[in-house]
């Protein structure tokens, strides 16, 4: 049997027991806190030596189909990390590219569009004979 945690550790610093203590209030029954500390420091029994080897010897290599591996890959959550400072030059280049793109797009006017100021005017056609 081994002791998992050294009693000289600062017990419950940021641990669940400490959190619970906060939740229930600081004047919580001292008995409960003692129990939490005892459970925290309760010695563990060591697993028998050779257990890992005996488990591994009983296992056959897995042959998982490719589609299942792909499905699991799709399901896997991912985290993206970035430094905003490093993003600034990239963002400026992107803005520049967009600005140039919009500048040179040949905008064509809609043929059905009519200026509202001209809506009351009657079109007149002059014919030279």
């Amino acid at each position, binding site marked *: 049997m081994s002791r998992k945690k050294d009693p000289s550790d600062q017990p419950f610093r940021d641990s*669940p027991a400490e959190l619970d203590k906060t939740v229930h209030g600081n004047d919580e029954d001292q008995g409960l806190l003692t129990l939490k500390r005892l*459970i925290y420091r*309760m010695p563990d029994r060591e697993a028998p030596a050779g*257990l890992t080897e005996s*488990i591994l010897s009983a296992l056959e290599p897995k042959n998982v189909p490719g589609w*299942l591996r792909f499905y699991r890959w799709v399901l896997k959550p991912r985290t993206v990390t970035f430094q905003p400072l490093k993003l600034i030059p990239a963002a400026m280049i992107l803005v520049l590219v967009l600005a140039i793109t919009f500048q040179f797009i040949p905008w064509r006017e809609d043929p059905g569009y009519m200026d509202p100021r001209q809506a009351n005017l009657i079109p007149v056609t002059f014919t030279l004979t």
Partner: protein
Amino acid sequence: MDGNDEQHCIDRVLRGEVNAFATLVERYQKPIFNLMYRMAGSSDKAADLTQETFIRAYEKLERFHPGKRFFPWLYSIGLNLARDFARKNTWNPERGSTLNPESLSGCNSPGDQHERMCESLEFLRLEKALDELPVIYREALILRYHDECSMGDIAAALDLSVSAAKMRVHRGLDMLREHYKGGTHEPQKRSL
């Protein structure tokens, strides 16, 4: 080992690398063995049940949802196995005392020895009080205060909602206090 490392190991196992599973076994064999010891009351049976838990987890590994924590999933497999075992077998503990002479050998002074003995007796009393609790409360307490699991992990391991897990820990603590204070001398009963 964090969640990403675990996921990496699982991916390797699914690609056919059996040895990658060793990392997970070594990481979690102790809490699973201790769970089984509490349930079976004997080292040999606990070792068998621990082995069976890992083999079953290996067989079902492709069903493990990527992104979830591995330990609660493994614990729930172990707990189901342990419950099956407890239903089929009578509980006959070989409970070794926490008070063993070897633990006192490193003590320099009689004062240290006395302190260590008192501590061992406290642990013995605690183990007895925990044994008297229904499994669902005992395991919630062990997961929370010994293995330092989050409420989310406890809920996943015990197949509960988070609020039910909180309730279970809270009630378990109250029950444990009663048993610990009372120090009942009734014969131990196992309630699942």
